[in-house]
């Protein structure tokens, strides 16, 4: 449906399809929200200053609700963060949004998290924290960035955490 609203805005729908979609928008369901959102994005991309009052909050909510966005569902109080983003609500900025997943939730105390426990953790139990397969995924992800590859070729890639072999079926 989002595609169709986008087509409608670009005048690409034929009369019948357009009439049907406009009807849905008129009924005020999700289509209306999408229609409103798309216009706001389009306005802001054209640097129109007439953004409506609740723009940033709504944009934030919609983006947070997007199934494809990588961000976890976030608290309402986060919308201040989003406002800074929406000031430059170009598509590039929208693409960045997923990466706010790397910004911790409001209320997290990073400094505390950093200083409170490291000494204890430094002596943490030697038990591997992750399954061998997960550790191997991280090893693979790391190897390509090791300068050793440039003097040793691919040999270092054989390093893996031993895995239990599943019996052949």
């Amino acid at each position, binding site marked *: 449906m989002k595609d169709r609203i986008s087509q409608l805005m670009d005048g690409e729908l034929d009369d019948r399809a357009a009439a049907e979609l406009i009807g849905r928008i008129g009924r005020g369901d999700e289509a209306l929200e999408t229609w409103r959102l798309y216009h706001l994005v389009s306005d802001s991309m054209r640097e129109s200053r007439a953004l409506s009052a609740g723009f940033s909050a709504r944009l934030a909510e919609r983006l947070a609700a997007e199934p494809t966005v990588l961000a976890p569902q976030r608290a309402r109080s986060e919308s201040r963060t989003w406002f800074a983003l929406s000031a430059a609500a170009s598509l590039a900025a929208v693409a960045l949004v997923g990466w706010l997943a790397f910004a911790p939730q409001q209320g997290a105390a990073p400094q505390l998290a950093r200083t409170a426990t490291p000494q204890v953790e430094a002596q943490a139990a030697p038990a591997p924290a992750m399954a061998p397969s997960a550790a191997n995924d991280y090893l693979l992800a790391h190897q390509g960035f090791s300068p050793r590859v440039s003097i040793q070729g691919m040999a270092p*890639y054989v390093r893996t955490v031993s895995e239990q072999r599943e019996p052949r079926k």
Partner: protein
Amino acid sequence: MMLGRALGFSAVLCAGIAQAQSPEALAWLRRIQDATHRLSYTGTFVYQNGSRSETSRITRYVDASGDIEKVEVMDGVPREIVRTRDAVRCYLPEARVVKVEHPLDRSAMAERGFPSFLPERINELAKHYDIALGPNERVAGFDCRTLTLKPKDELRYGHTLYADANSAMLLKAATLGPQGELIEQFMFTQLVIGGVSRDKVRPRHVAQSWRVEDSAAAPASFPGWGLSSELPGFRKVAELKRRVGDAGPVGQMVYSDGLAAVSVFIAPMEGRRDPAPAGLASVGAIHIYTRQVANHMVTVVGEAPAASVQRIANSVEFRRP
């Protein structure tokens, strides 16, 4: 003329004393790197760490369009890794999975000193390691020059490299701990240089119906994330977003001193089935350390002593930008 030569000689001598390494040793490091990129070969090598040893076959094919390299692990869980110009593919036949790593844009990487050393990076290495030539030794039937890289502090491992005196091909590489103890070792038991045809580097597996796990790596930046104190000599050389295994998106920041590299992975905790406890795991010279920072799981992977990897992990912080 005489004066010039004498001056030149003393300059070399001074540089040698100042950095405790001979230009000849640095030249050998470059020759090894060059050979690694230039030669076609096929051989068998043993990877050893502690009591564990594993045999693998490696084949490298070079032509004008680039190079292809294939490694097959012969012991334990079967694995085959094939690197082509644009990707590294890791085939796991028992799980019927192909893991695909796409290197970032090569030119961008080269600017930052990857994937290969640049001359200035080799000079940088000399800041953290004493690099010297050692006695000749035989490995797998080849007369080898030995090259020692002795770290100037305990933040990194030492290395002894054995390279064929003629071709400079690396025959053996040993990683050493602070007391000179062997941490891990790669050693060819058999090697033939040259005479490789292209079909020798094709993957053994068709892998058509296998699950593909693509890293989907792309440059990125993570405002707010960083290290409260960097490890001396390690600087950030790459920053990207990617997938690791079949998990969701992960941020990766790579720090390197020119020889050792440490990756910091940052993954949101939300949606994770298992809360990841802090802990340390290791494979030979690589240590993996996980801890939680500001609602994210931080996983640090690096070929450096456990204390270095932990130090980096413990300095990972998030400051609201």
